[in-house]
């Protein structure tokens, strides 16, 4: 269907997709930019301002008087308010009441006889006739236009957190089987529900759909009770990988069955019949015909199941535990946030770190959402 791609409408398509993509990535872009910003700026200016040179009011503190040097009989403290990060000073001051009283290059008389000069490039000098006292440096208020400034500190902090590698592996150990097992189980069930006649099929399907609604939180306590019971009976700890795989399998199944059954039911009947005539049993039809033809559905479900298990924290905490050895990546990152959840800069960075693996999975599996998988199979329809 190539020729239609040349139609002038294509511009409209490109534009609308662009618009939608912008709309959808705008919030995430905010997060991304925020994760690269200085944490103090996060709260005072919009993330979009970080991209442009902006004028900001800031306070710098001069080095403490200990660092003063004696020059020509005067005591001097010097430094740079911009700390070498570039920018232009447009005004400065020394009092919180009048933070922009002076122009760069002017000399301000401080209260105690000291004189402060700030140059446009941010370098300053405090000159005093007497030796300066105190342990804290002078505050210097200034208005500066600063170029965009980004830092990877947030990422560095997240990535260097202790145990992160271990947690990464834990997450993988949880997520991969928790994705594969339900797919396997659901695919068989979906095939039975789509193509094998047996009494009560429609009802069973409806029940599966209904089970989609069961709130996860409701099931945790009874399940854990059960696990503890069973675990105690067999003398194994309740919180094991097996346990969490099964839990994720159970929770993921309704959607998996529902999606897969819908897809499988849409496969051309004749293909299945022809396999049946060829002598294939249900098992063989399923494995050799239905499974390969259901790849798009399997892939799309896999994407989601992986994503959920990867991002899940609750089930992991309940069924695996929160100890150092078994903590999953999400748990590890959430713990970095501190008790009051205040460290957004960590959160923003970790959000992007956790997103990478699901995106890789998405990209990898997207290949299987192929077009024309069934082309050439039957004539008619």
């Amino acid at each position, binding site marked *: 269907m190539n020729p239609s791609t040349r139609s002038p409408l294509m511009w409209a398509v490109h534009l609308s997709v662009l618009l939608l993509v912008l709309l959808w990535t705008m919030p995430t872009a905010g997060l991304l930019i925020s994760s690269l910003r200085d944490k103090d700026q996060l709260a005072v200016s919009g993330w979009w301002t970080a991209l442009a040179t902006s004028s900001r009011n800031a306070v710098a503190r001069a080095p403490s008087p200990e660092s003063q040097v004696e020059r020509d009989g005067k005591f001097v403290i010097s430094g740079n308010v911009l700390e070498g990060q570039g920018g232009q000073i447009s005004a400065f001051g020394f009092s919180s009441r009048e933070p922009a009283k002076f122009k760069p290059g002017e000399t301000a008389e401080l209260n105690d006889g000291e004189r402060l000069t700030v140059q446009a490039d941010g370098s300053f000098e405090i000159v005093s006739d007497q030796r300066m006292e105190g342990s804290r440096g002078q505050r210097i208020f200034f208005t500066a236009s600063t170029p965009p400034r980004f830092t990877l500190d947030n990422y560095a902090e997240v990535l260097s957190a202790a145990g992160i590698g271990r947690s990464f592996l834990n997450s993988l150990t949880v997520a991969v089987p928790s994705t594969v097992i339900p797919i396997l189980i659901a695919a068989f069930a979906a095939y039975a529900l789509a193509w094998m006649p047996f009494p009560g099929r429609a009802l069973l399907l409806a029940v599966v759909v209904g089970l989609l609604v069961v709130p996860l939180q409701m099931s945790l306590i009874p399940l854990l009770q059960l696990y503890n019971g069973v675990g105690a009976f067999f003398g194994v700890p309740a919180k094991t990988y097996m346990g969490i795989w099964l839990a994720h399998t159970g929770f993921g199944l309704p959607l998996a069955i529902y999606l897969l059954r819908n897809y499988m039911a849409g496969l*051309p009947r*004749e*293909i299945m*019949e*022809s*396999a*049946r*005539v*060829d*002598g*294939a*049993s249900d098992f*063989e039809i399923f494995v*050799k*015909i239905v499974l*390969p*033809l259901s790849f798009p559905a399997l892939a799309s479900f896999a994407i989601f199941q992986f994503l959920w298990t990867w991002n899940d924290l609750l089930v992991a905490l309940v069924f695996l535990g929160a100890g150092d050895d078994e903590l999953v990546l999400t748990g590890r990152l959430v713990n970095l946030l501190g008790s009051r959840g205040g460290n957004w800069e960590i959160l923003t960075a970790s959000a992007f770190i956790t997103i990478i693996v699901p995106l890789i999975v998405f990209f990898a599996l997207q290949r299987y959402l192929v077009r*024309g*998988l*069934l*082309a*050439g*199979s*039957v*004539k*008619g*329809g």
Partner: protein
Amino acid sequence: MTGLLLKDIRKSYGAVDVIHGINLDIKQGEFVVFVGPSGCGKSTLLRMIAGLEEITGGDMFIDGERVNDVPPSKRGIAMVFQSYALYPHMTVYDNMAFGMRIARESKEEIDRRVRAAAEMLQLTQYLDRLPKALSGGQRQRVAIGRAICRNPKVFLFDEPLSNLDAALRVATRIEIAKLSERMSDTTMIYVTHDQVEAMTLADRIVVLSAGHIEQVGAPLELYERPANLFVARFIGSPAMNVIPATITAAGAQTTVTLVRGKSVTLDIPTEASENGRKASFGVRPEDLEVTESEDFLFEGTVSIVEALGEVTLLYIEGLVEGEPIIAKMPGIPRVGRGDKVRFTADKAKLHLFDAEGRSYRA
């Protein structure tokens, strides 16, 4: 004894009755062809034999065993679907090998049989392609190859040659005939629209119409002695010319008067009670001969001349309103449009049907 016995087989889709009670006895090794107008239920019947369609009523026996509830894989059949039904994700080779792999044949045996079938169907160069990269006819051949590769007790073919060109069709037809000869124990059931196929392949032809059997018989029998008007018109192309007539003299020989035509006496005996009844007089286009003599059957004006090369079709208006009589002349006769022509025919090749369409000859 891999015979097939159909006893009052019925099929309905919801409220729609599609098959109305079919009784048929097919012997092992027989080659049976189903013909009938589009939509008369041929595919449905075939699918029921295969076990793909539930049987609404009646009993079906294969090998003397009732198979109504036997799943397809246990019936020992191979089938070519009208819609091909290829496995889209498998190459041509794998499509053909699938059944044998399921049956756990040895690798060499599979390879041998697949290659033989591919050779025969001129598919060798496409063995590595997926069905979607094939032409319509190639797909159809893969479907045939798939069935041929297996060694079933019963072959079911649903219009297997419809998308093939004439040469290939002939070739494949001959291959199928050879196959059936070689595997003389294998029963074959074959659906086709092609007269030639039906005539050349069949041991017996089953003519279906709207879900029931019109006639079963050997090819020539159907051609020469159709049981009713339907079969008469259905077998043979172009169809038999049918002209309304009235029986004027019943007896050992019957004389009928054609509409707007002359009286004709046929070698067909009728009861006296038939005298004066309406009847249908039939003559095949290829049995008509142009004549100059007065002893003609009827005359008319040529409205269309269709020259097909070896034969020429003449459409003659003037006898039955709106329905031209067709005559099939060998070669290219020197008759033009608008010419008035007289026709005669061999007496033995004339047909007569009663008002319900039943043949008087039967």
